[in-house]
């Protein structure tokens, strides 16, 4: 029995509130980890593109599950097991509603976005990719949306093509997209928001172009799902991958959205308990989706936490979160220009620049910057951001990155700028 994803009640409620700007000072109270000091300074957490902090609502949902409803799911007919199953499947339904999927069965729980993409790359390719076919990616992909396709292409005898990233602003070359979206391309996988450049790609437009030409699409929403309104039916994608830990949820839980027809047609990937229909010593048949793709005991408490996270975000309103991030990014981009010798990557304006800002000093190594500002309380990430091919294209070994979320404030953007000024003075750049 397919359960229809219920209408987005809570989202609607907040549409009224959406008129009001978000007040990060109030929101910070929900995130106890933000109140701490590091090295004697108040923590300024600007590594949200790597992982976000979790609100109390999520932490307590997990704890509450273990204290009350803890049991294994499915095939259990006692009370506790029933409650656990309900909680797990309710989390699926909430995630489906969050993405406006047609039904909960279109949501497969995975460990993270990486596993979601591995699942799609393995199972879809096993069925639909053959010798001579091609997969289209972009030059700005995270390793997690690149290496699994390298493996799939190798297994199938297919090849990879890439949409170039152009200009100093790091945008996709849309002319090349048009030229590349044709045979032998069978699938187009691209990131919605680049974690290394901050670029927001025109996902709906890219999906529309692909669909016109009968090409399947996978949207890597790791950096967008918790940051802006997202609707898989409006996007028109076939697959979408996300990570719970990047949208206020726990670690160890992510999701693959996929259209039901695809899930029906694809062979399973991981196999074992929970995902079978019938098993003999020699062969097995599969349960219908989503269970076909979830082998073994799932991360039940993780799913419950993810459900609480999407509830939390819907309560705040993703439209407001998005607006807040864009405003903060615009402000920070502006102020960062004051810092002498700093080179900024990605779009010059927000939008199309989302809340992850990559930069480097011409003469100070990114890791020295990160170490230095850490002692001032500012948490940044330095490195290749799992996008080595892009770094090579940008001609830098590494960048430092500041990334914002709903709880970050202008004062924190100011603290970042101050810390970078101090870094520059210290290293004499």
């Amino acid at each position, binding site marked *: 029995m397919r359960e229809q994803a219920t209408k987005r009640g809570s989202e609607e409620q907040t549409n009224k509130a959406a008129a009001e700007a978000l007040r990060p000072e109030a929101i910070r109270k929900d995130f106890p980890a933000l109140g701490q000091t590091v090295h004697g*300074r108040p923590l300024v957490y600007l590594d949200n593109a790597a992982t976000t902090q979790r609100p109390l609502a999520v932490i307590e949902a997990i704890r509450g599950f273990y204290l009350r409803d803890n049991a294994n799911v499915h095939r259990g007919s006692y009370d506790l097991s029933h409650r656990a199953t309900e909680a797990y499947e309710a989390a699926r339904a909430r995630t489906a509603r969050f993405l406006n999927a047609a039904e909960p069965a279109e949501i497969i729980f995975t460990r993270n976005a990486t596993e979601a993409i591995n699942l799609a790359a393995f199972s879809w390719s096993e069925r639909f990719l053959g010798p001579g076919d091609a997969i289209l990616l972009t030059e700005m992909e995270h390793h997690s949306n690149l290496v699994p396709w390298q493996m799939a292409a190798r297994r199938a005898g297919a090849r990879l093509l890439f949409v170039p990233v152009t200009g100093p602003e790091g945008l996709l070359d849309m002319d090349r997209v048009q030229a590349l979206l044709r045979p032998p391309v069978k699938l187009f996988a691209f990131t919605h928001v680049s974690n290394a450049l901050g670029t927001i790609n025109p996902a709906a437009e890219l999906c529309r172009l692909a669909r016109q030409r009968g090409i399947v699409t996978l949207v890597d929403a790791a950096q967008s799902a918790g940051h802006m309104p997202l609707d898989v039916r409006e996007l028109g994608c076939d697959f979408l991958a996300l990570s719970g830990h990047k949208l206020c949820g726990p670690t160890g839980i992510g999701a693959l959205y996929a259209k039901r027809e695809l899930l029906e047609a694809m062979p399973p990937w991981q196999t074992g308990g929970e995902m079978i229909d019938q098993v003999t010593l020699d062969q097995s048949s599969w349960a219908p989706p989503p269970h076909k793709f979830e082998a073994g005991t799932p991360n039940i408490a993780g799913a419950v936490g993810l459900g609480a996270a999407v509830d939390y975000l819907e309560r705040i309103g993703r439209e407001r979160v998005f607006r807040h991030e864009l405003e903060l990014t615009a402000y920070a981009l502006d102020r960062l220009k004051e810092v002498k010798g700093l080179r900024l990557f990605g779009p010059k304006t927000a939008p199309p620049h989302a809340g992850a800002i990559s930069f480097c000093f011409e003469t100070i190594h990114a890791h*020295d910057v990160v*170490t*230095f500002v850490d*002692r001032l309380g500012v948490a940044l990430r330095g*490195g290749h951001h799992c996008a080595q091919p892009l770094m090579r294209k940008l001609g830098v*070994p*590494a960048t430092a990155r500041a990334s914002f979320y709903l709880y970050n404030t202008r004062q924190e953007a100011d603290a970042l700028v101050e810390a970078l000024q101090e870094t520059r003075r210290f*290293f004499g750049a």
Partner: protein
Amino acid sequence: MLDDLNDLYQQVILDHSRNPRHFGKLPEATHSAQGRNPLCGDELTLYLKINDGRVEAVSFEGSGCAISRASASLLTETLQGRPVEEVRGLFEEMHKLVTHGRSEKPLPEKLAVFAGVHKFPSRVKCAILPWHTALAALDNRKEPITTE
């Protein structure tokens, strides 16, 4: 906390990182190796000219952070003219210094500036990378080595 930073980035380190000594290829090298820090992807190549059991010349190339550049630069100064057999011992004392803040046996004075590294665990690999690479060069290892 800023004390920690001053301990880490001592003037000597900043100076060597800005103006590394013995930077560049060494055409007459008898030994060389490539090292990479997997945490950041930075690479350096170390060149050694060994003659009669002694380091007659040494140089390095590559890109890296202030710590790794300074460490490589000070390594070249330290090894210059030394018996090869002392290198492993120096590596081991250096390792203790950057992980625990002090060595067991005395180290050449200029290396003492790296004592501050131990308060920055994520930077230990930066300081030790050139030393790893030196050992690899002496062992004539062909594959690039990493600090893992």
